[in-house]
């Protein structure tokens, strides 16, 4: 059951007013433009034990994603494809409003939006991840952990997820007797990748659209539209979040804005990759 949250972060009315009136004038409380991102740091291969990983910092938001790999049976409807599972957790120390326990609706929504964009765009070429077609395939677990919440968790998480997949090296599978499969950790192969995707969340305040809101700015957003964009500029997923409403015009503008901003994010990912290779 989904319940209206009552434990929201408290932002003073004065601050809310000044944030809103600044946005009305095309300014932000931290000096940014409406269509300007905060500083982004991406560190690939942050966790040596994981087959792939990335540390991402966007302003004060910190997310670490990691990929672990195993062998399992494929889904009956896709017997020749590997399996990828996306999971997200907001750890309790990341925000005063987060509680311990299983992922809540926000974490589940975030993981599912990322999962859908990755799946629909065939970012990972799952057809190359069968070991014994119909019987044994690679299973990929992509786990996204939020360690500090300063707003815009979805965009940061997608950056971490995408960088993780792009830099992952998975152990080569060796088929032994009686179709037993072993993973040879000495010999690693890059994960087969078809495409790249980023998510740009566009927030609405009084008919103005902003990107990359801080945690305080999120308190004055009426609603948000998360738009996933592929590197070739197609829309690879959308999710409206929050209790406000959009007009048709605003949605079209948000998509255009997201497409524009996505170039910056792809540049950041590619810059991080160039340092690895």
């Amino acid at each position, binding site marked *: 059951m989904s319940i209206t949250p009552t434990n929201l972060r408290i932002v003073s009315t004065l601050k809310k007013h000044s944030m809103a009136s600044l946005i009305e004038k095309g300014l932000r409380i931290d000096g940014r433009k409406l269509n300007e991102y905060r500083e982004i740091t991406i560190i690939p291969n942050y966790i040596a034990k994981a087959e792939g990983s990335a540390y991402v910092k966007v302003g004060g938001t910190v997310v670490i994603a990691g990929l672990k790999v195993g062998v399992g049976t494929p889904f009956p409807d896709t017997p020749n494809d590997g399996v990828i599972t996306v999971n997200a957790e907001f750890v309790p120390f990341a925000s005063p409003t987060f509680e311990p326990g299983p992922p809540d*609706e926000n974490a589940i*929504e975030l993981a*599912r939006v990322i999962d859908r964009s990755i799946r629909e*765009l065939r970012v990972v070429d799952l057809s190359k991840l069968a070991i014994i077609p119909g019987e044994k395939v690679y299973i990929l677990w992509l786990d996204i952990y939020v360690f500090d919440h300063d707003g815009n968790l979805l965009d940061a998480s997608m950056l971490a997820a995408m960088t993780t997949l792009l830099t992952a090296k998975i152990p080569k599978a060796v088929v032994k007797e009686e179709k037993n499969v072993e993973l040879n950790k000495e010999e690693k192969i890059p994960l087969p990748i078809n495409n790249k995707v980023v998510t740009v969340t566009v927030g609405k305040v009084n008919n103005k659209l902003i990107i990359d809101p801080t945690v305080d700015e999120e308190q004055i957003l009426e609603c948000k539209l998360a738009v996933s964009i*592929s590197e070739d*500029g197609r829309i690879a997923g959308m999710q409206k*979040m929050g209790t406000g409403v959009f007009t048709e015009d605003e949605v079209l503008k948000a998509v255009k804005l997201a497409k524009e901003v996505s170039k910056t994010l792809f540049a950041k990912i590619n810059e991080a990759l160039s340092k690895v290779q």
Partner: protein
Amino acid sequence: MKPEGLKLINEEGLRVDGRKPDELRPVVMEVGVLKNADGSAYVQQGNTKVIAAVYGPREIHPKHLTLPDRAILRTRYHMVPYSTDERKSPAPTRREIELSKVIREALESVIFVELYPRTTIDVFIEVIQADAGTRTAGIMAASLALADAGIPMRDLVAAVAVGKVDGQLVLDINQLEDEYGEADMPIAMMPSLGKIVLLQLNGVLTEEEFKQALQLAKKGIMKLYEYEQQALRKKYVEIKPEEV
């Protein structure tokens, strides 16, 4: 994987169930279908069947969950085990948790929650037969149930899913089109206000296709809005003077 030879659009440009690309499935809507609930409604779209019910505004325990300046909303979207091809476990899935959230957020923008401080409005949606478009049928049933319960709203909510199958945009997709199509875009609006309250896209579209999909959805939504109004009128027209 799409079965070999399956064509979702045939040579005449018709879909697997014989519909034109911009045609809705047959719709049945009925208001006040349950005895106990404060408001209820049944919505059927093709083979998708959904019941929604509303309780409230009512008191909530524990009281710390209330808000001093408005009602809270509690929403559950749930699929019953026999609604799908394979039995669905009755426990809430990640999908149901996500859909409950997006439906709650959609309804919160529609209801005048500020009229009922310190109370809860409970909206329950049960999908009894699933054939794609269950969240959109569910949100329409919920909005009819809210109207039936007499809860003040800015407008009714009408919703439909636009899909892309065999490269073509189609209105109100069915299960086959959802499974083997390239995109599924559920959208819910307050039709007479022209406001979008729910929007999701699962799949890949170009910007131009998205614009067209939005237009196609609006067309369907305006029709569904008429059906909703008819369903509401029907209930109140049918009350005979001696029953009052």
